[in-house]
């Protein structure tokens, strides 16, 4: 029974190959806001399923090595695949999958429920924001692909700043919460497994570098576009600011645990 729950949960709180279903569900959501909502809700449902059914503890005792290997393999695979895309929407999905899969490293541990929910939100929130920015970009330029026009820093400075900051937040940059979430995931691993998680960190650095290079640099070749409104920029900035503040405080909680 626990194994069946594990498999169902794998489509909500993704691990490969069920991460494919998770991504498919995200793609099929109608519009950017729906995708943002989906990336927040699905992993929480997966987590609740594991916690409420008791599979969280049983699986952690029965197959800790398999779960560890699956989590790390999924995180590495999707981080690597994110480097191969120049589409903001696909990038956001892959990074969300890569980060969320790390939750499986904590299966079997005995943290507070709300702490686990925060761990999952640490990956979901930047992904949701990124999916919203991808929607805004699609509305303004016809696509969220960065390979054709490029050089958005000059024509869409406000949106570019928000996308850049969100991309940094999605890749565990301090002082955002997922930096501390990553520290927590590291803490759960035996030292011998740590290099694999650090490979994920390295790949995230590579993917975010490539995304920013495509987004910010070069000369813009597309049609004239209007930037995000000042109010929208403040709202996005404020959300990221609050997210960063939570990170600072959550960093302390991780050390207590």
């Amino acid at each position, binding site marked *: 029974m626990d194994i069946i729950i594990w498999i169902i949960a794998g489509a909500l709180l993704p691990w490969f190959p069920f991460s*494919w279903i998770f*991504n*498919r569900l995200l*793609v099929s959501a109608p519009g950017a806001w729906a995708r943002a909502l989906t990336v927040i809700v699905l992993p929480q449902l997966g987590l609740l399923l594991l916690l409420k059914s008791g599979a969280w503890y049983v699986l952690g005792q029965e197959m800790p090595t398999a779960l560890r290997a699956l989590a790390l393999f999924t995180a590495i*695979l999707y981080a*690597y*695949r994110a*480097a*191969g*895309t120049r589409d903001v929407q*696909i990038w956001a*999905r892959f990074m969300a999958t890569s980060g969320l899969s790390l939750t499986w490293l904590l299966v079997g541990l005995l943290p507070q429920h709300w702490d686990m929910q925060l761990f999952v939100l640490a990956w979901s929130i930047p992904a949701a924001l990124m999916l919203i920015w991808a929607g805004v970009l699609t509305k303004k330029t016809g696509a969220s692909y960065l390979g054709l026009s490029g*050089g958005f*820093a*000059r024509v869409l400075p406000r949106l570019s700043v928000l996308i850049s900051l969100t991309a*940094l937040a999605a890749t565990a*940059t*301090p*002082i955002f919460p997922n*930096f501390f979430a990553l*520290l927590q995931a*590291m*803490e759960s691993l035996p*030292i*011998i497994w*740590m*290099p694999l998680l*650090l*490979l994920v*960190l*390295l790949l995230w*650095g*590579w993917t975010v*570098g*490539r995304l*920013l*290079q495509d987004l*910010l*640099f*070069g*000369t813009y070749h597309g049609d004239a576009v209007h930037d995000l409104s000042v109010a929208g920029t403040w709202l996005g900035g404020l959300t990221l600011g609050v997210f960063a503040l939570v990170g*600072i405080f959550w*960093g*302390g909680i991780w*050390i*207590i645990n």
Partner: protein
Amino acid sequence: MGNWAIAIPFLPILSAVIIFVFAHSARKVAARISVIITLLTFILALIELTSYALGGFSRVEVIGTLWGSVWLDPLTLIMWSFVSGISLLVHMYSVRYMVEEANYTRFFALLDLMTATILFMVSAADLITLLVAWFLVGVVLYFLLGHDTNRPAAGRYAFWTQITYRAGDVPLWLAAFVLIRSYHSISLPVIFSRLQMYPHLDAFWGLSVPELVGFLLAFAAFARSAQFLLHGWLPYTMDGPTPVSALMHAGIVNAGGFLFNRFFPVFEHASIVLHFVFIVGLITAVVGSAMMLIQNDVKRSLGYSTMGQMGFMVMECGVGAFALAIFHLIAHGFFKASLFLGAGNIIGEARAHDGVPADPVYTSIVERRPAKPSRLPWLAAAALTIIVPVVVLSVSHLFVSSRLLHEQGVIILLFFGWVTGAQALFATHKMTHTNPWRLMGGILGSFVLVVIGYTLISHYFGHFLYPHDEEYQIYGAASINSVYFDVLVIILALLFVGAWALTFFADSSGWWDRADQGRWRGVYLALYALLSRELYVNDLYARMTQILLSGARRLNVMLRWC
């Protein structure tokens, strides 16, 4: 020292916030705020340093409840004064230099953030603060280097820097977790005191915890300080604004030397790591200096010069001269900052005077100077070249402390001092001058002054940084078997003297001209191509990236982008 010392690294953050929120469209106001607050930071850092020198004591100040703490020890206070000093120079220079650039206010805010991040990095008293600051330096530097978003090259080279820095973050993370697991604390002073009690805890692959951590820290330092194979990004950071190049080459790239000093107690129990560090530093110093010589772009030449200097700094750590590495990074920081900030003038000067060597006939007839000026007799020059540096260096160190001359690390550094001094005198001898004795006398006088000044300053500086003679322990850790050491020094000395003699006689008998035309021409050209393509290191990385990206794209297509 008051508790307000903790405010010092927060001041530049305050400046950045004020600029971002209130002054992002007021260019003059933003620049003024930034310069004034950096000046204030520098003054406060100097006050802290002075009050410590007048009888203060090391202490840890906690900012957060569980992480976030600064360690106010001599290393922090020296680095705070140095970093804020360099940052102040760069800020003042940028006020006019960047005035015609877009995003002027953002540039100052980012400079402030960078200053704050480095101040936190050098003062971190716990591993989490260190990791946060170490990581953020790479992020902020990326945006500073990529300031001009119109130029794809700026983005490309900023990315090279960012990914190399990330490669250096990874071993630091692992080192931090090995220390946390082994000594059950995130506080650096606590970890170091427990490490002194239990230095031989086993880790992996037959290495003890200090040895494993030492290797990991060394790799982190190599990435930051552009050591060989992780150096490709450094010469290309010239595509960023000149003030950022100055800040980077004067301050940020020195992080490796700082890291060795901060984790001094780890390296005390990791002899094998120090030997490895010495070899990497030596290779970097040689490769960096060789590359510097063949550059035809003044700023890239300075970039490779930095690489060579960083190699030398890391080599100093490898022989146990940790305090000297800090003195070196400060001295190098100031002279490299002035070189970068003056590079524009040098380019202007080169445009005005082409530097073509004078024609002997013109010199003789029009300028009425001897067509063939004389040189010193070769035997006198050889004796001066070889003996004078040995005497000057040995006497100056003997004067400071006779105990120093028994340390292998000091002898190695004296050896390099001798090679450098002798090379300078040898180059002087090759110069033609109407009064060669006067020329040689001038150079000898400067050499003696520099050596004595450097020896005295570095000695007292080392005593300030490590007041309990900890330096001798690290010299001991860096030592090797004395027979091997003596043989090594003798072989190296013979090698250098032989090479000088060969150069001298080949030069005077026109051997180079004949070799250039003969069968050695192919070898010469191949060597030149190898160096001018920068040993193909960047080409190799570019190819690897292409292969990896192509694999990622195929995988994405195969899995239908889900």
